[in-house]
């Protein structure tokens, strides 16, 4: 499998006052393959989200390298990074962060219009298709105030997928949802991964992580452990077995 995303000696630190520097990421080395579904877990404050934002170029690393395909992110200009996020990466956030002044449909097509990779009609067609698949077709004209949390997260996923990105990043995408909605979103993400989109998530939820191919466990700014779960084939029993296996492994890490 080809490597899609790779970090070498990735460091991130913040300066708090004159002689007080806090290291959040310490020499993180990792490699994500094309088509893979990877989850990052770890206690609060271990640097999971920071790692995610540094891997996608929303945050500037302090040192080290991040390679996305053949490009090294620290060498890209703001403009090139923006283009990269627009056309080759997608994002799903815990708080969803839709634009409140746009309708649901417009939130989805916005980055499609901006990318100009295809005509606007094609973007709209694709948006409708995605809304069909994610089960929110009837919400198209609504404002975001008229949808539930689970529905809004589907909108977020549609928005992330509109430009057919190679990788989808998620920062606790189910964190703010009830358990039924969370399960639906997880299944949806699994499906997206099956289409060939690489997925990398930060999560606290074992059930989410259990659906990924690989789990990275972070402590104190480093990747402390890694677990290969293998491809999830999507039936109920295997899911529970994987959750138990992962829980056991996590307990060992915590101990």
């Amino acid at each position, binding site marked *: 499998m080809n490597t899609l995303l790779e970090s070498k000696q990735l460091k991130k630190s913040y300066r708090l006052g004159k002689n007080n520097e806090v290291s959040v990421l310490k020499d993180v080395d990792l490699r994500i393959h094309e088509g893979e579904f990877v989850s990052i877990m770890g206690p609060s404050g271990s640097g999971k989200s920071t790692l995610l934002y540094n891997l996608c170029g929303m945050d500037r690393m302090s040192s080290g390298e991040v390679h996305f395909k053949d490009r090294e992110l620290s060498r890209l200009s703001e403009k090139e990074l923006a283009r990269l996020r627009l056309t080759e990466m997608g994002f799903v956030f815990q*708080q969803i962060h839709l634009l409140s002044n*746009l309708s649901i449909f417009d939130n989805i097509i916005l980055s499609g219009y901006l990318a100009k990779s295809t005509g606007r009609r094609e973007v709209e067609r694709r948006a409708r298709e995605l809304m069909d698949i994610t089960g929110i077709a009837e919400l198209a004209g609504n404002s975001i105030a008229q949808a539930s949390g689970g529905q809004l997260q589907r909108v977020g996923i549609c928005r992330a997928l509109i430009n057919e990105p190679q990788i989808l990043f998620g920062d606790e995408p189910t964190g703010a949802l009830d358990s039924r909605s969370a399960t639906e979103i997880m299944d949806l993400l699994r499906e997206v991964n099956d289409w060939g989109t690489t997925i990398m998530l930060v999560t606290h939820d074992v059930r989410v992580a259990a659906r990924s191919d690989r789990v990275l466990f972070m402590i104190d700014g480093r990747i402390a452990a890694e677990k290969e779960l293998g491809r999830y084939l999507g039936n109920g029993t295997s899911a529970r077995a994987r959750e138990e296996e992962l829980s056991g492994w996590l307990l060992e890490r915590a101990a």
Partner: protein
Amino acid sequence: MIYARIIRNEVARKKGAMLVVFAFILLASLLVAGGAALIVELNSSLNRLFADAKAPHFVQMHTGEIDPAAVDAWAEGNSLVDEFQIAEMISVDGSSLFLSDSEAPQENSIMDISFVAQNERFDYLLDMDNRRLDLEPGEIGVPVYYAEEKGVGAGDRVTVAGEGYSHEYTVTSLVRDAQMNPAIVHSKRFLLNAADFERLKADLPDREFLVEFRLTDPSRIDEFSSAYEDSALPQRGPAVDYQLFKILNALSDGIVAAVVIILSLVLMVIAGLCLRFTILATVEEDYREIGVMKAVGMPRGRIKGIYLAKYVALGGSAAALGYLASLPLTSLVTGNIARYMGRAPQGAAGLVVPMLAAATIFAMVVVSAMLVLRRFDRVSAVEALRAEARSEAPRPGRVLPLSAGRLFDINVFLGMRDALQRFRLFGLLTFVFFFAAGITLIPLHFLSTIRSPSFISYMGIGSSDIRVDLRQSDDIDERFEEVVEHIAADSEVARFAPLVTSLFTMVGENGETERLAVETGDFSVFPLDYLHGRAPRSHDEIALSYLNARDLDKKVGDTVTLRSGGGGGAGAGQADLRGNGNAGGARDLPMRVTGIYQDVTDGGRTAKAVLPPNRENLLASTVSLDVAPGTDVAAKMREYSELFAPARVTDLRSYLSQTLGNTIDGLVMVTAGATAVGMAVAVLITSLFLRMLISKDSKRIAVMKSIGFSLRSLRVQYLTTALVLLVIGIGAGSLFSNTIGQRLVGFVWGFMGASQIRFVIDPLQAYLIMPLLLMLTVAITTMVSIRGIKEQSIAATIAE
């Protein structure tokens, strides 16, 4: 103390916004205090000048012989007369007057220049210390106007020279003249030593007399004026009174004071809007804190008090500073008053009135802050704590879909959409753009109007290439005839019209008489635009100037009665008006009003009729002419100047620029100043507003960045929003200046005789250069003000 701490914290947190609000309040207070000081100074200086000069209450000008004994006898019998005198003036033609070693005489000057000796009893010409000026032989006192306009100063020479005579004088002082000070009065008096005056008289035969009165009760001036008119005393010339002197003296500075005060009120409105915007932004940020304060049971009044304290401190210090800053500034803006009238001790009023004006500004700040803070009443503790509930999501149905903007770049469309969607929020900015456009355009339009040759139609004059004006003199009839004959025979003249202005007696409904300056001749040659009706065509028709029509309460179709033969002292011996040889007793001629026109000349009170002039009471004789095609106007003017000397030969442009030169110069300054103010306000508010906007929008900006919007995209969005608001502002500003602005100018100029000024708009300046200049300014300001979006971290904002 808690208030002091909160104020300190707040100021530190919102430095930029506070500074802008502070600056506006300061400026508003400075201007209003300055304007008030100007009015106080104007009033006290004017009163002092009139007192020091012992200004006459009633003055009758008269050309020709005079019988002092008759005046004396009449005055004895009139109980209203306190003092009277007859002042003799030597009329000096511009072509024989040379100022400050200049080779060229004051030939084309529109001023009527007279040389006088100091008066004995009253109407003194004053020196620059407001003392009665008494000169030694060889010395001359020059009107302040010439120091201001021509740079004449002490030590300069003034020469009066003509064929066979030459008199040279040295300027020892400038002269303040309560009657003829202001530039808009087209008569000026030069002061000589009495012996020099007598010598000059021998060489210059043209005389004018001022029959001057001081009254025991100046409030009964109208009564006195009627009594004089009904007498047989000399009245070949206009009569003027005390009130008019005062108005003319106060006019230019009074307008400045009015403009300054209006400007300060506009600034106050902007300051109020800024304040509202700042308070609302603060309240939004402090929403949770307000909720907490409410939740722990702090009374509403107390919470408001905390916020209000800040604005009381801000408004109080800004207004106080503005007032203090106005103190040294006042001496600058009152410089004109100081030169023309001299400073008068003002007592407490000079300090107290401006202070009260500044205090009013402070009160307005506090009231507007209190009005905005009423909003606190609507915040419930729970709602405030659940700040998330305050979504700014628009109601469905009001959302303009992105697909509607197919024709536009997505960023441009988002910017346009935002401008419309959050229009309420952008109200302040739009208003400021509207203000900037309006304040720039109104003077600009008026400037291009007053500069355009068509402005002549507001001066009661038809448009012609050249005007020949003859000065009043004893042999004027013969000279005028010669001029007309010569012009009629000149093959290079395409058409011409001799027009003579003379005084007629007008009889009111109750038999009271009033004098009316009537221009007579053929008005079809150089036609005039009439406000209502048309030019008079037959002997029984008359057209009135706007101010005359208003004062006489006449409309087109009404009748005005002119008295012919024997009516009033002035009319004695005059020929029958209609020239039909029916000489004899007085006869009243009903004249139908056929038209009303605008005229800002001669105090705006003129009339036109197709009658033979009243030769006994001539005021002005003019020939207007157009040269034949291919003839050089300038050459023809030179030819006529020599030929008809000392007649005044001007072309339309120089007539306009001389008559309106001061006004135009002033207006150029006003326009430049207004443009600068407009731009400065636009820059300040745009920068304040956008800084606060991008801080308010930080989340939205972060989200956009996260999904791939580049900095450039975001800049284009904000720039578009700003420009859309600017275009709306400029559009509204243009509309305002072309309608209400035009009426406003008409209203002000209505006092001078032109009530319905139609702007002659220079489209290049008004609709291209000015908008482009504003756009460029706003675009640059916007780009600079939103630099902050680069520093905003996506991760930090989104992860919050």
